[in-house]
């Protein structure tokens, strides 16, 4: 059963060679591309990157060898991890930078978000929200699950930067139950992202 990756004719030990990388990139399926797009939309909010920029940067780092793709990891999983590390580094650099989100956001009560200025990065139109509205996106996610107590509790735990294990322990959830709730959160978040409510691009 294929899970988030493509198959190669040959595999070498350690990390993939440049030839294998090019072969794999050329062999990506439609599902692989969409999987990548989804991951980027999860990671991009709150960073200086638009989702498409994240994908491009991850591919760039794979091609130029600054990130090596292990042979035992699927391509899309690897690229997702690269995007995760890119945004982690971006967050470290942005500690004093105001929150940046794409332009189409309006507040949950229909009000327009005030903006100070447009900011730097690449292809997406991005604006800076004034500081008072910086929690809006998290609140938007929590509102999605107002009638789902289990999901609300898990999200609160994540918002408090608890690990998945800590949350499971705190709520008395086994892995299967936790994963079921997590899947439910992702499905609902997907819809919000596609509708632009969570500002994923």
């Amino acid at each position, binding site marked *: 059963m*294929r899970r988030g990756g493509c198959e190669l004719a040959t595999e070498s030990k350690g990390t993939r060679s440049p030839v294998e990388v090019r072969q794999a990139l050329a062999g990506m399926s439609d599902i692989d591309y*969409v999987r990548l797009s989804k991951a980027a939309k999860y990671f991009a909010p709150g960073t200086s990157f638009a989702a498409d920029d994240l994908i491009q940067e991850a591919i760039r780092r794979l091609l*130029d060898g600054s990130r090596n793709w292990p042979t035992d990891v699927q391509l899309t999983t690897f690229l997702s991890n690269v995007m995760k590390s890119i945004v982690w580094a971006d967050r470290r650099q*942005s500690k*004093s930078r105001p929150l940046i989100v794409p332009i189409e956001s309006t507040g949950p009560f229909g009000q327009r978000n005030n903006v100070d200025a447009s900011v730097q990065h690449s292809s997406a139109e991005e604006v800076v929200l004034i500081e008072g509205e910086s929690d809006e996106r*998290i609140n938007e996610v929590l509102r999605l699950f107002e009638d789902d107590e289990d999901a609300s509790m898990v999200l609160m735990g994540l918002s408090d930067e608890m690990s998945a294990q800590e949350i499971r322990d705190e709520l008395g959830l086994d892995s299967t139950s936790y994963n079921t709730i997590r899947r439910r959160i992702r499905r609902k978040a997907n*819809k919000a992202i596609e509708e632009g409510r969570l500002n994923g691009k």
Partner: protein
Amino acid sequence: MASSNENTRNQWAQIANELADDLASTTDEELLLELKDDGVDISAEATRIRNLISGVIAEHGKEKLAAARSEMDLRNRQEQDLGIQITQEIRSKLTEYIKAGDSTITGALTIAARNGAELSEEDLDEVIHALFDLGKIDEHGNLL
């Protein structure tokens, strides 16, 4: 102490990590059903991302080629700098060596030239380069 914005970023990062982990654990078949259920135009989105990635690959290829050309140009310049700068004075010296039938020189000449045919300036320059590369003359045209 972390600012409000930093906290928000960190909070979202935790949620995003979990969403990404769940995505990674979703099989292609499950994801396909999910996308259809969400009304996603899979083909259109895939084409968009494919084109995005193709652009990066093409750009990377151009950058690699440009870097290789720069390296080659630099290497050529370095080789030229080490080469002999042929002056009229050096040509005159070599012409004298040839007239004198110097054994070091005659070995580098074509048969026609050895038989006394006139060498053009271009031919003479080629001989001079060859002799320099062979270590038979120094950069001033003197026999070694």
